[in-house]
């Protein structure tokens, strides 16, 4: 029939992931991947998250039954340690993938979601480079006039740690329930790689510095396409996918 469609549709997250990684691959980044069932060693220990420390509470973790110290990875940062064990700096990598959190599900939180981890290690990497890289791709994704703010954050594997907000898509900065009246929505976390993380991988932290950044892909997609509920991405509904 003449108005029956013949082409299928890629998932909106595929568009967003590719839109983020393509320009960075053009900038010389390498894609690295890792397993979704991960040891606590890579998911926490080498990322400077001490055992029995409250910071492990920050990420409600799913543990695998019957396997010692094995979790569904809570962050794509888990690939950092794996990569650094087998590669020497300088390098710049991107790690797209699924992560899992055992937390109450609502419009902005889901049990599984996607992240893209970025990691750059070299001899004179600075926080200014982190800013430059982040702004570069945020502009690619949202246009030249994208508005962001950088503020202090805490992630055990970086120091200093930074959180990056974008103007709220719903109220455009005026304040609304979606952004808890602040006018801003947190879109990603980043920071300068903690020396302990480099040292754990056998990299001399006096010689090398790095930055890491973690992008919440669903957040990005929600902002870009104004999707009100994160769960729409994983419920297998073509009424969502076929809009893209």
């Amino acid at each position, binding site marked *: *029939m*003449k*108005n*029956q469609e013949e082409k*299928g*549709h*890629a*998932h909106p997250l*595929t*568009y967003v992931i*590719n839109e983020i990684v*393509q320009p960075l*691959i053009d900038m010389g980044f*390498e894609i*690295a*991947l890792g397993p*979704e*069932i991960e040891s606590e060693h890579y998911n926490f220990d080498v990322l400077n998250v001490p055992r*029995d*420390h*409250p*910071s492990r509470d920050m990420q409600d973790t*799913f543990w*695998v*039954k*019957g396997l010692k110290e094995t979790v569904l990875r809570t962050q794509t940062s888990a690939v950092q340690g794996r990569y650094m064990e087998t590669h020497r700096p*300088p*390098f*710049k990598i991107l790690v797209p993938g*699924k992560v*899992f959190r*055992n*937390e109450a599900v609502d419009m902005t939180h889901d*049990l*599984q979601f*996607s992240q893209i981890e970025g990691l750059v290690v070299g001899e004179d990497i*600075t*926080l*200014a*480079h982190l*800013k*430059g*890289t982040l702004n*570069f791709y945020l502009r690619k994704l949202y246009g030249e006039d994208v508005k962001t703010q950088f*503020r*202090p*954050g*805490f992630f055990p594997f970086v*120091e*200093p*740690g930074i959180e990056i907000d974008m103007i709220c898509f719903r109220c455009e900065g005026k304040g609304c329930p979606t952004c808890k*009246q602040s006018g801003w929505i947190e879109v990603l976390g980043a920071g*300068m790689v903690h*020396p302990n993380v480099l040292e754990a991988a056998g990299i001399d932290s006096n010689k090398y510095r790095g930055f890491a950044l973690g992008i919440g892909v669903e957040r990005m997609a929600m902002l870009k*396409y104004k*999707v009100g509920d994160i769960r729409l991405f*994983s419920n*297998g*509904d073509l*009424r969502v996918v076929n809009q893209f």
Partner: protein
Amino acid sequence: MNISYKWIQEEYFDKPLPDPKELVERITKGAFEVEQVEKRDDDYLIDIDVLPNRAHDCLSHRGIAKEIGVLIGTPAKEKEYKKVEGDISLDKKITVEVEDAELCPRYIGCYVQNIKIGPSPDWLKKRMESIGQRSINNIVDVTNYILFGLGQPLHVFDADKLEGGKIVVRKAKKGESILTLDEKKVELDETMLVISDVNSPLAIAGVKGGKKAEADENTVNIVIEAANFNPVSVRKTAQKVQIKTDASKRYENGITSEMAGWGMDAAIELILEVAGTKETVVGPKKDVYAEKEKQSIIKISIDKINQTLGADIPKNKILEILDLFGFEYKIDDNDLLTITAPFERLDMSIPEDVVEDVGRVFGYDNIEEKSLGDMDFSPKVNKEFYYKNKLQKILVSYGYSELQTYMFRDKGEVELANPLAKDKPFVRANIYDGFFSSLTLNAHNLDLLVLDTINIFEIGTVFTKEKEYTVLGIGYFDPKKKKSKSKEKEKLEEVLGKLSEELGKKVTGDFIDRAEGGAVVQVDFSRLIEELPQPESYGDVLKTQTKTEKFKTISLYPSISRDIAVFVNSEDDQEKLEEIMRTNAGDLLVTEPRLFDEYRKESEDGKVKISYAYKMVFQSYEKTLTDVEINKIMEKIYSEISKNKDWEVR
């Protein structure tokens, strides 16, 4: 952490603070996220989300005031509490014994005679109310005031209920239990630290007080406890007994042992002020502090601060920031700083911690961005990522739509120890179980989707006992046809054939179908790509683009479909017919009228007529539509159609 604006203003700053809105903005930009601001009478309650690394010192008004002082450029003033020596005549009233200095690095007990428990003075009541705490009595309020003010948890025992005049900080004995202040019986074990007298536990150390030595309205002699406990031990105990308190929260994050001393001085001074009588006598402080805490010393050069930030902050500006923090420091001829961190800043241990403090106060927004320069690094193409995207592109072009579905299932081989939903404790061992649910779900919405068949795929991870690997699942369902006639397997084989052709390698998989219709093929993607060549570049596989700018919310209400078939005079009338349907259907029409049948008919007089059959789908965002409503719309369309000469609704 709930902070009272007025508390901060009155106790820490002489000059007026910026107004709450401005202050919140400065805190957000320079220190912590603010969850909420609530106006309360002549005060503001500010809920601050203290970052985990600052939970050592900022879960208190003092800590937050110091941060604010740095951010507004006026250091917070500190109240000095008197150091009371204590009356030696009361020396024998209590002794303190700490059995495990690792679990309790410091314990100060102080006996105070003849106090009067009663209501708190107004100022103290107001402080409590300002942060949403109920005023209980002068003694409890003082301990809470110091907890939320300085960040030091305190406890007060009734000295006369304490057996043997002795406080023993020890591990609980097997089989021991305690009745807590809220009258719950808690079983203890040998891993837990307790505060005990010569016979039985008085409190679970750092977590919760017990009923045994509770101070009540008849209490006249007390023992004040100001202590520090091992964070891991408190955390484990609190988790085991499932009691979380404001005290345990602070201990488990780790606080400086020095604060116990400050807290005790504050407690003595305030208890004398609000509960003292003419007969009140303070005994000597029994301070068991095996090893005095050391301040951490950090060496970092001005250059290293700037090199890490990629900024060019002048030396005097950096020193000014360090002064605002109240850091003690020395600087040598090579601009190497030696900084002594304040006791309470347990987060400070490495040079990068100083970089952070300088950076955030200078303002990350004030650091100019730089692009990454050239690097001696040759990135490789990731084979898995490449082929995932290549297959996705092929399948989309072949009419299949991509899903990314939940891993959590009711069946599987790998089970979670702590699933969120009890009915889905497994991670998937295959992709098809989930795919059949998706086929059914989407088959319900065929009209809304403007589709005849459901064609889906997903490339995702599955987990078996042996391994984790990636599979490609392709699903096909023709809900309008009987299963025997829908040729599901042929359709899926066709897709595999297409993939084989594009990849130059035979792609095979396992077919699974179900009685109600619908079939899925699962391909071992991990194994497939092992046999495919390593790509040299990503080419255009990542170049995916959608024109969609804004997502259209999905209505929660059911849709109603109507078919309409009309005879018109020629092909030229089709556009007009569609226009009539579109304009008269109004906002409730969710998809374009969809042509599903067309044929020509020649009547006996030689006149040609064409029949067009359309499907129209209606749906509301606000309610379930009724047939009556839709009939009205259809009547309107029929009537518009009948206005055209020789047109005929079939």
